[in-house]
């Protein structure tokens, strides 16, 4: 009993005790959930700020004038599809099918990258149409909210690529460092936040 606890505690995934694997993963997942709880408040505060300033447009463009809903719907769809590929990567990883896991990880990173490319394109368009960070409180809160979301996606892409590199040298495992389960939790969370942002910031404002 005591020995099993020691293994759990220090995350010894190399011991003979099959159950330990599960338990250290549990500890790591607990921490990730706590972190995501914190992130909820982070995005909550950003979204609240946006709602406060949504009609403070001064002389700049308003939401109705500027948002291109079909385009953003398409990039939202891409991001949501990346959650599907993330699940497939997780599934393949659990069946120890590293080849497929690698493909799906790369697919997820690619879709995330596409979403980011769409965001950069969208930001560029908006700036051309006259909405800058310093145009109005609406502009400030829009760019800072969606920008911070984009930064989260970018960090996710970096972690996915890191996992891909690690998996090539066979260093990817359940117990240490990056793993599919934790990155998956983070990735899904970032996607869910986007659903809220897309609804509140885009759909409800036009």
């Amino acid at each position, binding site marked *: 009993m*005591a020995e099993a606890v020691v293994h759990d505690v*220090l995350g010894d995934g190399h011991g003979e005790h099959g159950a330990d694997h599960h338990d250290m993963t549990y500890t790591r997942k607990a921490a990730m959930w706590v972190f995501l709880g914190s992130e909820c408040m982070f995005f909550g*505060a950003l979204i609240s700020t946006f709602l*406060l300033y949504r009609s403070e447009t001064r002389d700049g463009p308003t939401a109705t004038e500027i948002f291109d809903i079909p385009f953003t719907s398409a990039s939202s769809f891409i991001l949501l599809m990346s959650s599907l590929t993330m699940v497939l990567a997780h599934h393949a990883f659990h069946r120890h099918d590293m080849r497929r896991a690698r493909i799906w990880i790369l697919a997820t990173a690619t879709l995330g990258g596409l979403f980011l490319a769409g965001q950069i394109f969208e930001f560029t368009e908006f700036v051309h149409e006259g909405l800058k960070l310093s145009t109005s*409180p609406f502009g400030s809160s829009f760019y800072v909210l969606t920008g911070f979301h984009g930064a989260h996606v970018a960090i996710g892409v970096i972690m996915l690529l890191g996992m891909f590199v690690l998996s090539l040298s066979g260093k990817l495992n359940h117990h240490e460092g990056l793993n599919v389960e934790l990155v998956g939790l983070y990735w899904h969370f970032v996607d869910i936040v986007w659903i809220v942002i897309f609804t509140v910031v885009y759909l409800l404002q036009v």
Partner: protein
Amino acid sequence: MAAVATSEASFVSTGPTGLWSWITTVDHKRIGLLYGMSAFFFFAVGGLEAMLVRFQLASADGTVLSADAYNQLFTMHGLTMVFLVVMPLAAAFTNYFLPIMLGARDVAFPRLNAFSYWVFFFGGIFLYSSFVLGGGADGGWFGYAPLSIEIVEVVRMDFWALGLQFLGVASIAASANFIATIFTMRAPGMTLMRMPVFVWMSLITAFLLIFSLPIIGVGLFQVFFDRNFGTLFYEAAAGGDPLLWQHLFWLFGHPEVYVLILPAMGIVSEILPTFSRKPLFGYAFVVFAGAAIAFQGFGVWSHHMFTSGMGPLAEAGFAVSTMLIAVPTGIKIFNWIGTTWGGVLRLKTPMLFALGFIAMFIIGGLSGVTHAIVPADTQQHDSYYVVAHFHYVLFGGAIFGFVAGVYYWFPKWTGRMLSELLGKWHFWSMLIGFNLAFGPMHILGLNGMPRRTYRYPEGLGWEFWNGMATLGTVLIAISFLVFTWNLIRSLRHGEPSGPDPWDGRTLEWSIPSPPPVHNFDEVPIVQHLDDFWHRKYAEDEEGRPVRLQPVAGGASTVITGPPDDSEVDEHRESIHMPSPSYYPVAASFGLVVASYGLVYQPVGFIAVAIGGVIAMWAFFGWATEPSQREPYYV
């Protein structure tokens, strides 16, 4: 074999020595000590700032400080005491004792723990470096907009915005670590309702931090962007709303108040039962009252803003919620008094400070409730009455509690007792000095003396009490000199304490002082609340404690000692301890380099890039290095 065993034993008991071993340490006990020593250093600095402020105010038309210097000093005093003293002191105690009290060998993520410390450490240096780079932060610790965004040529408030952000990252990482530790790494039998109250309060504090820090994080980013990238969040002329800052700040700031006090409440809840030789009265009530404080703590923030014109409905709502939060706090006070009631009190120094905590905290709590009454609060707002109130809860509360903790646990850290005589001198001088310094501020505040003004004219009748307050500050300073002398002297010459000098109740007293690197030779199996007490005592028919067996060598005979040669190998468990790592300190260094770059952009973007690369390299190195060294045996 014997030689190997000896060298191993010395390694196990003390760990490797030298500066590098402390920089790369991932041992929760060492990290706790690092937090404690850093906090003590910053306490001295923050105390000196307070002394300068008090000398300036000692008489009418003070000439010690200019208005500008005064603004920097009162701002940095507040920031230091909140973020660089009380929070890291709580982290020090939590780091050191949370795993031990749970019967664990370390926290869930030892390297993340080291990362938290180094981020805090570099954050403190970052914040203070602004003194040589254009002056200390001068907009108050609360940094109200639009004041905080107005003067962008001077970088002071940039250092404030990024420095607090830094300290927030450290606390969020530490909190996630503590929560994961508490939920998944308790010793067998250590159910949640058998956890020491200190652990419970650490858990609740961690949740408060997790949910409140990101809110101010957003606010600080907004201020920083307003100052540097032309956003308009708090630019009233352009439709920005400075009141938003107050909401975001206090939505963090009020839970933060409980972050500061709950760990001290936890410490006092450990000390009172030990020195009353009684279990904590109403354990479950104390625990749930703590949780209730945390929940309600998120619903009272606007009582800091009663004069901002929120309208009668919001004011009434927040007045009621503020009065209600006094209820769980009152429950705790009754439970502490109930613990001492009918107990066999031993008035050792830790107990004196714990009792001082209760008395001072009651005064601070009562003046706090008066803030809930909106018309009264409108009069008290921004007056010295408020200064008196929060010093009674933060100094009279938190600092008294932490000092009690130092006297209580110093034997566990060092194996030596602090001097009782010096301890009593410390206690009485600090108690008298504290009341002399902050008691008169109630009167000054009600007489209309505003806070945050660097001087006052003659003839308002404020000179006498201001003089007394300054005298009190001097007495406090003397009391801490006594304390420092006690610490230094006892480190070398204190009486050896043995493992269990206070006849303690919780698991930390069951292991040697100072504890070995791996804490427990054998992971304990917990059967009771106050498990260690129940291993030492049974109860007779009338509920009085009866020693189970005469213990010659302190507690060590109760716990399984080192196995003799006959049972080598078969019954010993291998111990896996995490290996030291330089990646956490490297990652935090990268982040601080990037932060300096952000202050001095656009040129600084080079530093942002360099710092970012360092941090990225460290994070990936961290993710791929093996987390533990070779297993060993005891």
